[in-house]
């Protein structure tokens, strides 16, 4: 395992000894990110794109600099392919409504998967209802992988959009997006990847992935809340209408008509999350200084240890792939005779923070035949000690509830 234990000091929340295993929900923020935001807000804050004076020019430069940094980080060909949004959810809604309402009609199919987060499901349900398109779903196998055979069978010329997670926030499963994109494109469909769990944890190159839209959130990748990213292939963005109307997204407005500004600004109505963009920039710098390969290796190393040690906990079952192939550092656990909420409460008392519930993936829960799981997830600041605390906390839960 890469030793990243020196990083822990950058995360003051962890100082009081909490074993924070809920990064899949939201990550902690390192000091360099907080300092970058604070410095910017103290030193050169102003609104952007309205630069008649130096402060505003500096702020615009910081904001557009963050856009360039994100573009570089995900391997975008063109900075204009980066749209700043409120988060992954808004990024997906921007595509669902902005692209979907324009390009879907009765008789079309939208193909999602059984393991989508509500963020990549509910918007498509809403758009399906408005357009008359039908929402269909690719099943998962009993090993909790995307069923690629079923996917190929479900594809057809009527499928216009494939909406797929880049990594399941419940199972840790990492679908083969490049393969999915190839197949989808062969049928003329666009591909949206909900990469909320992928971009924070894996090296991502949007060009290699081959999808058309990629959505992710800053707050899961060491950055601040309040900002997220939609990457779109230029030709796909060109097919899209703005999701929101307002200032800074128009070229001209009369009382009755408006013409849109260029891409990406037409998709960024109103004052954007400026200070947050600076924070996201710093978070990317931080991640890159570790190296995304190392970040992923670290997650995997902890996952390997956890999968092994959890195997010895009486009554514990893991929902998700049990090996390390195409899997990230998210482990959903089910304990015989103890509800996930009780597990989480007991772990919390033992200083271990995990999330319990349906993880905004109720259809997947139904498919798995559970109502809730306790989920542990790893990130750069976690160590083997966190895994040990998890394991001993789970044993304590078993004892309290008399699980054998």
């Amino acid at each position, binding site marked *: 395992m890469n030793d990243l234990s020196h990083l822990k000091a950058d995360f003051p929340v962890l100082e009081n000894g909490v074993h924070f295993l809920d990064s899949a929900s939201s990550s902690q923020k390192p000091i360099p990110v907080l300092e970058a935001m604070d410095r910017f807000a103290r030193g050169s804050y102003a609104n952007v794109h309205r630069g008649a004076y130096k402060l505003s020019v500096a702020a615009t430069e910081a904001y557009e600099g963050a856009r360039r940094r994100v573009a570089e980080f995900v391997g975008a060909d063109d900075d204009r392919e980066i749209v700043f949004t409120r988060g992954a959810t808004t990024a997906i809604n921007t595509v669902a409504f902005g692209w979907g309402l324009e390009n879907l009609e009765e008789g079309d199919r939208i193909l999602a998967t059984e393991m989508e987060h509500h963020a990549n499901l509910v918007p498509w349900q809403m758009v399906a209802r408005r357009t008359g398109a039908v929402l269909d779903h690719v099943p998962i196998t009993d090993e909790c992988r995307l069923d690629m055979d079923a996917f190929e069978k479900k594809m057809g010329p009527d499928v216009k959009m494939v909406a797929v997670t880049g990594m399941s926030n419940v199972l840790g499963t990492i679908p083969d997006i490049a393969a999915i994109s190839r197949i989808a494109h062969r049928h003329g469909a666009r591909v949206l990847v909900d990469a909320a769990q992928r971009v924070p944890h894996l090296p991502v190159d949007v060009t290699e992935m081959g999808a058309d839209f990629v959505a992710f959130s800053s707050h899961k990748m060491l950055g601040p809340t309040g900002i997220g990213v939609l990457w779109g292939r230029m030709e796909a963005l060109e097919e899209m209408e703005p999701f929101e109307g307002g200032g800074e997204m128009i070229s001209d407005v009369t009382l009755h008509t408006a013409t849109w500004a260029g891409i990406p600004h037409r998709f960024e109505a109103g004052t954007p999350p400026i200070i947050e963009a600076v924070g996201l920039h710093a978070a990317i710098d931080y991640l890159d200084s570790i190296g995304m390969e190392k970040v992923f290796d670290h997650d995997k190393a902890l996952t390997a240890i956890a999968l092994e040690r959890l195997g010895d906990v009486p009554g514990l079952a893991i929902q998700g792939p049990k090996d390390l192939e195409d899997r990230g550092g998210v482990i959903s656990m089910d304990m015989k005779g103890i509800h996930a*909420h009780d597990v989480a409460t007991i772990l919390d008392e033992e200083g271990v923070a995990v999330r319990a519930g349906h993880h905004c993936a109720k259809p997947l829960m139904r498919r798995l035949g559970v109502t809730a799981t306790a989920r542990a997830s790893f990130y750069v600041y976690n160590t083997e000690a966190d895994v040990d605390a998890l394991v001993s906390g789970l044993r304590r839960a078993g004892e309290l509830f008399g699980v054998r």
Partner: protein
Amino acid sequence: MALEDLYREVILDHYRNPRNRGRLERPDASASGVNPLCGDELAIELALRDGVVSDVAIESQGCSISQSSASMMTEAIKGKSIEEIKALVSKFRKMMSLDEGEDAGFDPERPGAVLGDIEALQGVRQYPVRIKCAALAWNTMLEALQETA
């Protein structure tokens, strides 16, 4: 707080062996509720005779707190009039700090004196998110009673 205080034996007992599970043949009132945050679900059916709850049945899934709270509640309300049940709910809500006002006379020296076994749920107060679990059955039961009004 010690976890043993939250997970008292009586709670675990009601969790493992919930009373009054299932459905009634001819319910006079019913309601169902969910706790959207954690996904706990509960359906309740009531039989009433002369303004008294003569029978009750619950189908539910959820954590030990929501399950045991529901189970203990079914025992507490059976045979009680609607007025009596409302007084019970009011005491329960005060115990859980869901309602303010003068306390209902809970006394650590005399555990169980006011609400019997249900007082074992007092430990939940320390866990604000879990209070909703404990309250789910009670809220749903009130909704069902509303139907009869």
